[in-house]
């Protein structure tokens, strides 16, 4: 079934272009016969896909239960302080995108986040500042 191929196709597109553009959605629809409304629905259902262009650095803050209790909210606050973006947004200079994600398996060292796929744990404001600074330089 061609429907089954949709996820791999979207994954490929996400990897190639960094996001699933409207043009890509139309192209995939023509190739597979799957309606654009469905493709967009699937692309917005999974947090690993993005339908808007993303920043160079992708930050995904865990909001699983353990990190939540350990203060993932503070992580988002600190990030807002230095980047001025909320989850789902991208900085104007296109350097950072911020998202939340589900448990990333570092529950013992929460709050945790992924930066470009790499885990950072036991986060606090100073640690975050240093991480951001490093990315900027």
């Amino acid at each position: 079934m061609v429907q089954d191929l949709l996820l791999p196709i979207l994954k490929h597109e996400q990897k190639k272009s960094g996001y699933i553009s409207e043009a890509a959605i139309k192209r995939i629809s023509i190739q597979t016969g799957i309606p654009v409304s469905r493709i967009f629905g699937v692309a917005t259902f999974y947090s690993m896909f993005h339908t808007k262009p993303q920043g160079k650095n992708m930050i995904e803050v865990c909001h699983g239960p353990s990190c939540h209790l350990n203060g993932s909210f503070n992580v988002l606050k600190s990030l807002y302080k230095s980047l001025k973006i909320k989850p789902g947004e991208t900085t104007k200079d296109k350097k950072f995108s911020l998202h939340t994600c589900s448990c990333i398996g570092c529950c013992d060292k929460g709050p945790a986040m992924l930066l470009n796929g790499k885990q950072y744990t036991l986060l606090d404001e100073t640690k975050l500042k240093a991480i951001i600074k490093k990315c900027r330089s």
Partner: protein
Amino acid sequence: MQITLDKRQIKVEEGKTILDICKERGIEIPTLCIFEGLKPEARCRLCLVELNGKLVTSCSTYPHEGCEVVTDSPLIKKHRMINAELLMADHIATCNMDPNSHDLCKIIEKIGLTRIRFDPIHKYKQDLSESVIRDDNKCINCGKCIRACGEIMDVHAIDFINRGHNEKVSPYSEHKLHDVACIKCGQCVHACPVGAIYEREHLYEVVQALKDKKKHVIVQTAPSVRVALGEEFGMPQGSIVTGKMVAALRKMGFDKVFDTNFGADLTIMEEGTEFLKRVKNGGPFPMITTCCPAWIKFMEHFEHKLFPNMSTCKSPHEMLGNLAKSYYADKVGLNKKDIVVVSIMPCTAKKFESTRPELKSDVDYVLTTRELAKLIRTYKIDMTKLKDEKFDDPLGESTGAALIFGATGGVMEAALRTAYELGTGKTLKDVDFMAARGTDGIKTGSVDLDGKTIKFAVASGGANIRKLLKEKDKYHFIEMMACPSGCIGGGGQPWPTNKAVIKKRMEAIYAGDKGFKLRKSHENPSIKKLYKEFLGEPGSERAHKLLHTHYHKRDRF
């Protein structure tokens, strides 16, 4: 299979859901998300029953040998209540909790839910198009509109987007309905159990026009409105209320009450002539009807190759609107600018049609059957007590052939009646083309036209249209209607519009046709007069200028 249902041992057939079994036995279970004829999706969680002590959704659960089903218990009540409350939290923001307005509020009243402790999380802007409006503030995400649009219409203009409490119904990329390939059929309107999708109302504009002394306001009513309007006033389904409807319209102050059926007879003259011409010239076949604006839009989005196959005839109400502002205006000496034409249609797509640049000047406002009922109510007119009245001349006379336009296959049958007689010069022995009748999604048949076999096909419902298009080349003449069973199932018809109601409306249409002395469009004396006085002959240059149209390519997304 042997099961226990509410402590009673019963025998049931395999393959039936618990809900089916309960329904057959008259046990009432509230349901919101089942879709007649489609597989259950079990999203609303209101149809709970206990199966061996565990809560399940009855619409999607099949019993097994020896199982025990309980349909009413404190546990069921408690959970149904909380599920309903959660649905209401999504819906309450703009709801008046009127039990007459839609299914959810009916259920709320029935199960006695009065307090809703949760507030809606989101505030949405309405999606306003020129014909269909979606209000996400009312939407409970049952998904029925998506299924109507996808599975019934095969258009897929909308789907769920996002996840969790951000989930909502939307066209792709969060575009507005206006900007995507939505054909405005309004089938999503009928699917919605909470009234979150409805027509764009034009009542205000019409009332203003009626108040304006300088305006000459003309109203016309579609064939399928007269067999459905009565439902809005508590009359039995399938009542024919033509006379009362005319009386009500006159009472509200419309200056002239014309009949779209006249336009339908005229369509047949033009379309029949066009078809005979194609028979003579050997094509292009199949010729496809163009009475349905949702089908036209469908074709313009998805089937550009069909342009040469399409008839060039405007839809009946556009023809009549045009004549009202030309033929009729000349006759009574009115300025075209002072005339306002209002069409009462079973249809949301006709609202869109009347905004098309090339048709804009013909009809000013389109009201749905539901809107007309609302209008009659606001004027405090008791429809049921009115004495029957007749349509006005010169655009009010019609034949049985026009009435059947309201049902799937009707345009085909009417066209065949006329094409046969005009094409062969013989009188048709039996005017009933049974092969074109009935609620089937696709119907086919053939007629002999002086030794030439004409194969015809009829499709209603978008999914059936797509199916028929795959084998279109087998046929000479095809009728397409976007709504299931045609305009009697149109997106502007009274709630509820389901298979049972549609059947009743269809019976009324064909009974009405039988009652006419004149059942062929070319026998309509007013039509003959119109050609003699004004248009010349069918297919004449003038007829082409006033009654025919052209189509545009649209994006397939």
